[in-house]
């Protein structure tokens, strides 16, 4: 129900209006702060009482419903946290179990190469695949490290960091032609520092920009936007790439998750998981919005140093 319709009803019959407000609030359609309108628009004591009574009942029921909704949301959040924990434990065990076989395989490959047993060049291929698995295990360790690593806590100039990351990426082989356009809030002031670990934040911003470049065509631009709203500094990295399918979005920050559109691009499926972990360590957040075929915006929100 729209509030305009509700106010029109009040002018006709305050009692009916009170009842409608009550029912509306029971159904969760009308916020309780509209109750005062019914008090201003009545013309008799009984309709007032009836209206207020219905409103009070409605508010109570609405409150109970809101409580139930919060409880349900809470239960879903707890369940989600527990699923994430179980997933992390599994990834941790998988990582652990892969280490010994990979160590033996790397030494075995070195022995085979030294023995001149690589007649058809297969050792090179196997070696590359073992290296790939080793990198995956290494990336999983990096994620695990974030859980235990002592974090530096100092004021970090995010704008400086974004400029540094843009320069770093430009200096990488094959990326000199890619342009990352910076849009930094300047008026009336530049975004202030955030409190946190400079290196982790650098890594997070690097991963966002790296992803944007990886998942967009070479000729398309990438934008990095930095704004501050007095409480948060927000870094947005936007690309005009392939985008992420709607059903992949809720999972993009899960370890090892590779969306269907990401299969063709080399990567471990850990980049956004790492960014999400860094964001949460800083009491911030990562939000990913995307449209298939249009592009993706990754938003990293970090609390300002003095907020």
């Amino acid at each position, binding site marked *: 129900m729209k509030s305009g319709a509700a106010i029109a009803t009040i002018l006709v019959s305050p009692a009916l209006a009170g009842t409608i407000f009550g029912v509306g609030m029971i159904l969760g359609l009308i916020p309780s702060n509209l109750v005062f309108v019914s008090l201003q628009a009545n013309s008799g004591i009984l309709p007032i009482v009836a209206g207020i009574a219905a409103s009070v009942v409605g508010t109570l029921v609405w409150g109970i419903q809101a409580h139930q909704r919060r409880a349900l949301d809470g239960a879903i959040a707890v369940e989600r946290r527990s699923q994430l924990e179980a997933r992390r434990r599994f990834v941790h065990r998988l990582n*652990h179990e*892969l*280490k*010994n*076989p*990979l*160590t*033996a*395989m*790397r*030494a*075995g490959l*070195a*022995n085979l190469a*030294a023995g001149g047993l690589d007649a058809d060049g297969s050792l090179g291929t196997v070696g590359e695949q073992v290296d790939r698995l*080793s990198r995956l*295990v*290494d990336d999983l*360790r*990096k994620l*695990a*490290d*974030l*859980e*235990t*690593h*002592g974090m*530096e806590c*100092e004021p970090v100039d995010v704008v400086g960091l974004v400029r*540094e*990351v843009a320069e*770093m*990426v430009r200096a*990488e082989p094959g990326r000199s032609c890619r342009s990352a356009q910076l849009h930094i809030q300047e008026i009336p002031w530049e975004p202030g520092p955030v409190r946190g670990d*400079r*290196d982790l934040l*650098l*890594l997070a911003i*690097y991963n966002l920009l790296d992803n944007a470049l990886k998942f967009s065509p070479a000729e398309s631009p990438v934008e990095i936007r930095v704004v501050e709203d007095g409480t948060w500094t927000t870094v947005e990295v936007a690309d005009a790439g392939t985008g992420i399918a709607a059903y992949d979005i809720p999972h993009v920050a899960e370890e090892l998750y590779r969306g269907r559109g990401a299969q063709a691009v080399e990567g471990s499926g850990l980049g956004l998981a790492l960014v999400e972990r860094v964001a949460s360590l800083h009491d911030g957040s990562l939000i990913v919005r995307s449209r298939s075929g249009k592009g993706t915006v990754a938003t990293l929100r970090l609390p300002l140093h003095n907020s």
Partner: protein
Amino acid sequence: MKILLADDEQAITTELVPFLRRSGFEVQVAHDGEETLRKVQSLRPDVLVLDIVMPLLDGREVCRRLRTSSNWTPVIMLTHVGSAGERAMSLEEGADDYLNKPFDPFELVARIKAVLRRGAPRTQSIAAAHRLSSGDLAIDRPSRRAFRGKREIALTGKGFAVLEYLMLHHGEVVARERLLDEIWGWDYPAATRAVDVRIAEIRRVLGEDVEHPSYLETIVGEGYRFVGTVDIAG
């Protein structure tokens, strides 16, 4: 040079033993913690390559017992979980170096050679010492504090960890990637800038002249080297 390789994983010892032998070392194997302790006493290896996860006694306990009994055989610990905390703990137990599994076997040989170059210690190795000094610079490892003379100098946690690592590996050229891997726990190519930032911090705090450094030398294209001599401070 004699190496004792202690690892309960048969596949690893089967592959590493011939590799290490071909690299010029005499190699013996132990499969659990107790056997390792016995063989260190009987074989007197020049280096002990010690896996952390082993039956009967784990690698950390083996290392602790060796050091408690004043046995300073150089130890390279093979870490499993590989978290920064575990690696730091390995050094605190008195290991001279550590490598994360799965490692490149050539890297293991490089580490063994580096440990051997430092010379066989007759007393406590610097890796097991709580307090290290070089000239008027001193670091207290358990409390993570650094001093010039009697004056405490302010380093960030990372800055301290880099200085500590370079002092423990004094004389060696340490690549940025290795510092990243060992201290930060990641080695993204682009993140080497993070190392430069911490090196700059240490130099600023120590008042180093980059052209004529007393402590930290830049080896262009390779990494950094701690050039001062490092002693165990009382």
